[in-house]
């Protein structure tokens, strides 16, 4: 462990391998909790900004707290190759791609439904605007599809053919 990690965790002395594994596992859980809390804080802060009609520095800082560590984790995962899935036959590859398609499809539906509700009821209430179901649902589906296509290619990119 480096000095920064020891300093942040308040550790003195060396850790053995079992302790290091436990610390890594707890650290990952801690990151996930931080990320989720950050997302909730961001939604609340952004909602308040919409309500008051003024984008606050607080919201931008919370967004930075959520996005910067997430980018760091994604970059390190990508560099280490730990996010890659290796396949050893065409059958396995096709099975995995089908699985990804289902996963992305469900995410698109989920995203579209949640965003439709948020845009129709949440934003219109916060912005003191009139509800416009058709355009809100259309926007949500379009965003969901764009997001889904990006997610599909990103997930597909992480599959490595080893045959």
């Amino acid at each position, binding site marked *: 462990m480096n000095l920064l990690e020891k300093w942040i965790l308040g550790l003195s002395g060396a850790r*053995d*391998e*079992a302790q290091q594994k436990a610390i890594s596992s707890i650290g990952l859980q801690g990151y996930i909790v931080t990320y989720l809390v950050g997302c909730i804080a961001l939604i609340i802060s952004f909602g308040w900004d919409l309500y008051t009609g003024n984008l606050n520095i607080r919201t931008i800082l919370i967004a930075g707290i959520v996005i910067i560590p997430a980018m760091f984790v994604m970059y390190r995962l990508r560099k280490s190759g730990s996010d890659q899935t290796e396949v050893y036959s065409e059958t396995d590859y096709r099975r995995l791609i089908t699985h990804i398609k289902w996963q992305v499809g469900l995410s698109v539906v989920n995203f579209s439904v949640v965003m439709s509700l948020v845009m129709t009821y949440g934003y219109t209430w916060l912005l003191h605007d009139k509800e416009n179901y058709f355009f809100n649902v259309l926007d949500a589906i379009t965003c969901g599809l764009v997001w889904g296509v990006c997610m599909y290619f990103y997930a597909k990119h992480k599959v490595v053919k080893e045959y």
Partner: protein
Amino acid sequence: MIENRVKQYRKQRGLTQIDLARQTGLTRQTIGLIESGKYNPSLKACLKIAAVLFTGLDALFNPNSFDD
């Protein structure tokens, strides 16, 4: 987890968990976890334990008991 005979060999050598921990550079807690089969040690740790107990890896660990 993997079955092992670390406890048996350690007792044969007349060592306590603390003695084994000191000689292998692990903690007593980790030795306890290894002996109870709750932690799979790294190859480096296995080799250190085998060296301290004057035995081989095949005698200490049973590879047929992997459950993952």
